[in-house]
């Protein structure tokens, strides 16, 4: 199979075309107006349709996530205004608009433009800035509610407050909440409740169409919210509805009931908190006593250690030890002396002449002078001698002398 060396694959050229669209910022932030046709709401939740005018057609897709938020569902032939980004669906090689905003052109389209313009102006003035948002009081004693007294929204708010935070006082500043007369009334109601002095203001209205909620997109209302002395919690329409008042408010709640919840602590939490504090209070004071007891025990031990009695005891003990050591030394000395004495005695006994004489020897002395004779020549014939035995003695006269 032959192929041109620089030929693209279909995938790569299509991907390249897609990049061309996605690199163009105007294609990525496009408002398009046209008549809707071939409108299909797929079972997946995605919307598919074609926008057309006299000369051209543009395929559009709106994913489920965006489409499901829309209250307005267009019909075939409606002229609509959409916003989104243009890209290529590569599988079929078709470019199409991926829609994220959709609304009817004409009357409501104009409302939308007015909304965006006012939002831009107030935003530029800094009315929506996060730094302007005031914290809500933890315990609002006086809660101002600006709404219609006959509206279900007011009853919803009261129900939530009764359940959550019945310690509060609710002050209703009544006003119309829809129609041409509503904006100036809402402004007056906001100013009056501020003059009354409250801790927080709930600006609420139940759900309705875009036109029903329009009073909350009024510039004077927005400015009254902005100048409110008490922080304002807005709860207007349903989750999906955003009004200018919501942007200016210190907190935006999705519904009136949610506004009441955001503005108040839950009594169940408070009861639990008080209970917890009570337990810690008791534990705290018990710990104080326990700590003191430990301290006292410790000091008492220290004191016993330092007392004179204890010192005397110590001295006595070392004295006792000295005496014991002295005794031991003494008896050692005595024992050693005794042993030496015994040895001496034995030596002495061995040297005793009587012991020798007992074995048959005798000592000879000259009777005249008592001199001990060691040889026969020391005696003279006829001389008187004493012969000492171990037992007894003899007196003898020398008869004959034999010298060796």
């Amino acid at each position, binding site marked *: 199979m032959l192929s041109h060396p620089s030929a693209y694959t279909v995938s790569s050229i299509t991907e390249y075309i897609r990049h061309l669209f996605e690199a163009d910022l105007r294609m990525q932030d496009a408002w398009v107006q046209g008549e809707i046709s071939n409108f299909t709401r797929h079972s997946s939740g995605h919307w598919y349709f074609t926008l057309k005018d006299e000369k051209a057609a543009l395929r559009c897709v709106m994913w489920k996530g965006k489409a499901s938020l829309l209250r307005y569902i267009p019909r075939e032939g409606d002229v609509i205004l959409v916003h989104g980004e243009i890209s290529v669906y590569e599988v079929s090689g078709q470019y199409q608009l991926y829609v994220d905003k959709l609304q009817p052109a004409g009357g409501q389209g104009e409302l939308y433009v007015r909304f965006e313009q006012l939002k831009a102006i107030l935003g530029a003035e800094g009315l929506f800035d996060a730094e302007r948002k005031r914290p809500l009081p*933890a*315990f609002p*004693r006086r809660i101002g509610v600006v709404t219609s*007294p006959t509206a279900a929204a007011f009853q919803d708010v*009261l129900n939530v*407050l*009764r359940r959550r*935070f*019945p*310690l*509060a*006082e*609710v*002050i*209703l*500043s*009544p*006003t119309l909440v829809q129609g041409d007369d509503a904006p100036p*009334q809402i402004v*007056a*109601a906001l100013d*009056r*409740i501020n003059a*009354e002095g409250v801790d927080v203001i709930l600006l609420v209205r139940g759900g309705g169409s875009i036109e029903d909620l329009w009073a909350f997109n009024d510039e004077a209302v927005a400015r009254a919210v902005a100048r409110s002395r008490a922080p304002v919690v807005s709860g207007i329409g349903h989750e999906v509805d955003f009004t200018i008042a919501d942007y200016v408010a210190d907190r935006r709640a999705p519904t009136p009931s949610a506004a009441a919840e955001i503005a108040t602590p839950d*009594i169940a939490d*408070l*009861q639990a*908190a*008080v209970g917890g*504090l*009570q337990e*810690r*209070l*008791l534990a*705290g*004071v018990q*710990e*104080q*006593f326990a*700590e*003191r007891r430990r301290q006292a025990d410790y000091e008492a031990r220290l004191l016993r250690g330092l007392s004179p009695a204890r010192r005397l005891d110590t001295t006595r003990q070392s004295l006792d030890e000295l005496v014991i050591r002295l005794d031991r030394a003494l008896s050692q000395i005595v024992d050693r002396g005794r042993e030496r004495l015994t040895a001496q005695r034995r030596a002495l006994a061995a040297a005793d002449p009587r012991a020798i004489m007992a074995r048959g020897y005798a000592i000879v002395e000259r009777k005249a002078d008592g001199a001990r004779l060691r040889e026969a020549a020391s005696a003279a014939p006829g001389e008187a001698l004493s012969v000492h035995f171990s037992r007894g003695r003899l007196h003898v006269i020398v008869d004959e002398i034999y010298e060796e």
Partner: protein
Amino acid sequence: MAKSEGPTFEAALSRLQEIVNRLEEGDLTLEESVALFEEGQRLADRCQNLLDQAELRVRQISET
């Protein structure tokens, strides 16, 4: 919140928290801790009473 003698719920709760913190820090004489404990008990009772007896009051200011 019934208008009665004594601190508001918020004031009572805040003082109660302060007392508990002081007790937990220690460094008190026994007399002080007993006095704080008694004050804390009174405040806790006050808070519970306020919560138990609370009944939402609603009034409307006039339109002009």
